[in-house]
């Protein structure tokens, strides 16, 4: 598989969202954004992203709600998901989710890119 990969970035913090977008674009990814879970769902009607980067605390539809909506009957999400959140007590939450990784905000750019690259590479192989 070749060609640039697409990432759907869902975050209600517009500054963070745009800065993350710049980071990922500079790495060569195509980045689509949504400001909350609901917007994210409507993006998915036309978009087949290679990765979803998901914030947790958001209005209208939060990260967990969005995640549940994109899960199949077996509780697995239809797209790779990387959770990006400033929430403190994530440990309990994450054991309930079949996600490909999570990053705590504030994060190191290099760490974000390393994880994003790894998840997308893994997806290409499978």
């Amino acid at each position, binding site marked *: 598989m070749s060609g640039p990969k697409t990432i759907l970035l869902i975050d209600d913090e517009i500054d963070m969202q745009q800065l993350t977008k710049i980071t990922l674009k500079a790495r060569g990814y195509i980045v689509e954004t949504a400001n909350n879970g609901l917007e994210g769902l409507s993006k998915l009607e036309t978009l087949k992203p290679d990765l979803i980067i998901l914030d947790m605390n958001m209005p209208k539809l939060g990260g967990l709600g969005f995640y549940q909506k994109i899960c199949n009957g077996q509780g697995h999400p239809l797209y790779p998901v990387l959770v990006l959140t400033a929430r*403190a007590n994530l440990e309990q939450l994450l054991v309930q989710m079949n996600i490909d990784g999570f990053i705590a905000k504030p994060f190191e750019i290099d760490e974000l890119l390393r994880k994003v690259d790894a998840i997308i590479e893994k997806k290409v192989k499978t």
Partner: protein
Amino acid sequence: MPKEIQVLFIDDEESIIDGVKRLFMPEAYGIFATTSMGKAREALGKEKIKVVVSDYRMPEISGIKFLREVMGKYPDVVKVLFTGYTDFSAAEEAINVGKVYRFISKPWKTKELLSTIRQCIEHYDLMMKARSHDEELESANKKLKAMYEMQKEFTSTVSHELRTPLASIKTAIDLVNKGIVGEINKEQEEVLGRAQNNVDRLKRLIDDILDLTKMESGKLQLNFMMNDIHQVIGEVAKAQKDVAKSRGLFIKTELDALVPKILFDSDRIIQVLNNLLGNAIKFTKQGGVIITTQDKSKENHIVVSIKDTGKGIAEKDLSKLFQKFQQIESVETNEEGGTGLGLVICKEIISRHGGKIWVESKPGEGSTFKFILPLQERRLPS
């Protein structure tokens, strides 16, 4: 002003009622004395009766039955049985069924009767006072618990709310500083580097405060596993080797091969070691750091020491080290400041393991931070 009626007398003999009324006239409190059950019940409902004195034998209802009735409706009222009989079975019944506090035998002695009633009133007042204290304590306790829950919730919310803007600031600075959004010159890099250091410092502070809150509230779950402390020390030493090297310092390890595997939370012990080693490097200008382990299985623990060749710590400062936000003045460093919570967190982690942490130091002779970890048995429940 009429006296407040605090004592109720009931007896079927008018002469006794009259006698009682006269007798209690000089008392500070008022009494209500009657031969009528109906009036007695009415008075109980209307007045703030503290003591009920009932005759044992009465035509309508036995004294004990009446006192039992009083107990059912007014459980706090102090009950006294007035009786002409010194009948043991009556006394027993009175105590068991009527929960009678005192007996007064007829014919009474004036002084005794008055002092008994005073005692009864005092008893009632003390009981009420104790109860109101209990209630106050209970409500204070409830408030504390609620505040404690709120504080926990608050801390975690605040930490989220602080991290969110901080994350944007950090990423913005990093994007520019890494040249991702265009080339920058040396001076711009230096300026942003300083901003970056302080963002990182603020982030560490938020993390430390959250960590400490979790530990102090007992919310931190420790993940105890059989681990090899030497492996953990190796990892930490390796991770900090470059920093040490860049400052011309060595990191040596002197590990006791007899040290057994023990139960500990490796992430948390790594946190402790990182902290102690980081401090040692930060405060040492020449020489380096030696990490030592010692098997003390016979004493049921192992010892880990981090010894540096820094300038040491004055004795007056030693006790401050493990307290919150106590950075000691005698220490000079050009590094970015610590959070002032590192050693407090170390202490919490080690004590949650059932261990102990302390420092030995003399100015001019370097400092040695030591901690012991028990061989499983003394571990505190997490």
